């Protein structure tokens, strides 16, 4: 389980006191993760991003560190679809106090909007979106529309 070694150097560069380190993201996903978390800097959070960082495990990876922020379960769920190899480290007082390997869920609820504009979830109805997780993407549980893995970031329902 000692798979933090390759990121230790990075962590030292910009260690955070309390918050979340999302590590082992597929290269190129860091900005999508920030979009998913609704982080654009306007909230004043301290955020560090590493892109295309050398990694023993993935050759190249992205890493995101967010101060004073823990991920909700639905955020973790979508994260797992964007980047199944990702790990989440919860940091308190500069120490990793919890290390989660995220698991691919059966469905994700309420975090993506359906790309089918004519889907009932895009009408003004009291219903949350729900996507069933397929081997290489997501499927709207209402209209059946399929979103491929590489298109997911485009449909994140974040403000």
């Amino acid at each position, binding site marked *: 389980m000692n798979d933090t070694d390759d990121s230790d150097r990075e962590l030292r560069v910009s260690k955070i006191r309390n918050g979340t380190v999302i590590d082992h993201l597929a290269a190129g996903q860091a900005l999508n993760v920030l979009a998913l978390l609704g982080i654009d800097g306007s909230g004043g959070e301290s955020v560090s991003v590493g892109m295309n960082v050398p990694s023993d495990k993935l050759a190249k990876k992205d890493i995101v560190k967010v101060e004073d922020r823990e991920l909700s379960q639905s955020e973790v769920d979508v994260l797992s679809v964007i980047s199944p190899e990702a790990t989440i480290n919860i940091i308190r007082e500069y120490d990793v106090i919890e290390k989660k390997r995220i698991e691919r869920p059966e469905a994700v609820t309420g975090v993506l909007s359906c790309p*089918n504009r*004519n*889907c*009932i*979830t*895009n*009408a*003004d*109805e*009291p*219903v949350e979106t729900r996507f069933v997780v397929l081997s290489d993407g997501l*499927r*709207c*549980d*209402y*209209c*059946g*529309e*399929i979103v491929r893995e590489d298109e997911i970031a485009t449909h994140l329902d974040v403000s």
Partner: protein
Amino acid sequence: MRQDHLISATQLSRADIEAVLDRAAEIDADVGAWQGRRDGTVLGLCFFEPSTRTRMSFDTAMKRLGGRTIDMGSVESSSVKKGETLADTVRVIEGYADALVLRHPSEGAAKMATEFVDVPLVNAGDGAGQHPTQTLLDLYTMRENAGLDDVTVGIMGDLKYGRTVHSLAAALTNFDVRQHFVSPESLQLPRSVRYDLHESGAQVREHTDLDEVLSDLDVLYVTRIQRERFPDENEYRKVAGEYQIDTDDLDAAKDSLTVMHPLPRVDEIAPEVDETDHAKYFEQAHNGVPVRMALLDMLLENAEGGSQ
């Protein structure tokens, strides 16, 4: 048939389909015997999109079972016009009815509606999504004329937006059917339908030219190419013309070819074809009533916990 609702043909197993078709055949043999079977039952017709025929077909089916129907009327004259949600509308009408039929312009509408009601709900068409009762009557017609196993079926026209096509393609994966899809490039099957066909291991091929497969077909299912799908009238004319059939075209077909169409047609099947033994589309439309009688009867039976 162990379902509470009928939302999509993808939920139907071979056994489900055969149970409905068998009961429809029983009904067809002696419709009078089923009068009174559902005395006092009220069916709520919620049509958010006009469809006189489908509505009349459900209306007739319920009445022939001895029940009655209530109708929310046209969308223009109802509270929907005032901005009421679908979720609210079905909850209100559920209070008056033992089962609901829903036609709606948005994909997934029927699925969502079932989350708000406890009575059986039947999807009578949701946008470009699904139209499973049409599929059941299509299968009934196909079974009567060509059988449902070891047959080659061609489905032609607007495969992208045609909900009857999406439902039919899914249902046919339960049988030993070779499916050929014939359409202009711009109107090929949507990704979600392809995905299901692929997952089911169905034998599927796609074509832009009917001539490539016509002589192999046991069934040719024709659908309408809608003018409004094309930005340009000339573009429409050019495409639509290639997917029309007349008796000359059918010279190349098997004598036993069954030609079907969910109707209404515009000019995709020349009227002269009506006079041939190939034409089964009016028979297909008539089959809607016994098939919907069978389906409603079975869903109501399930709702009662299998008594009757």
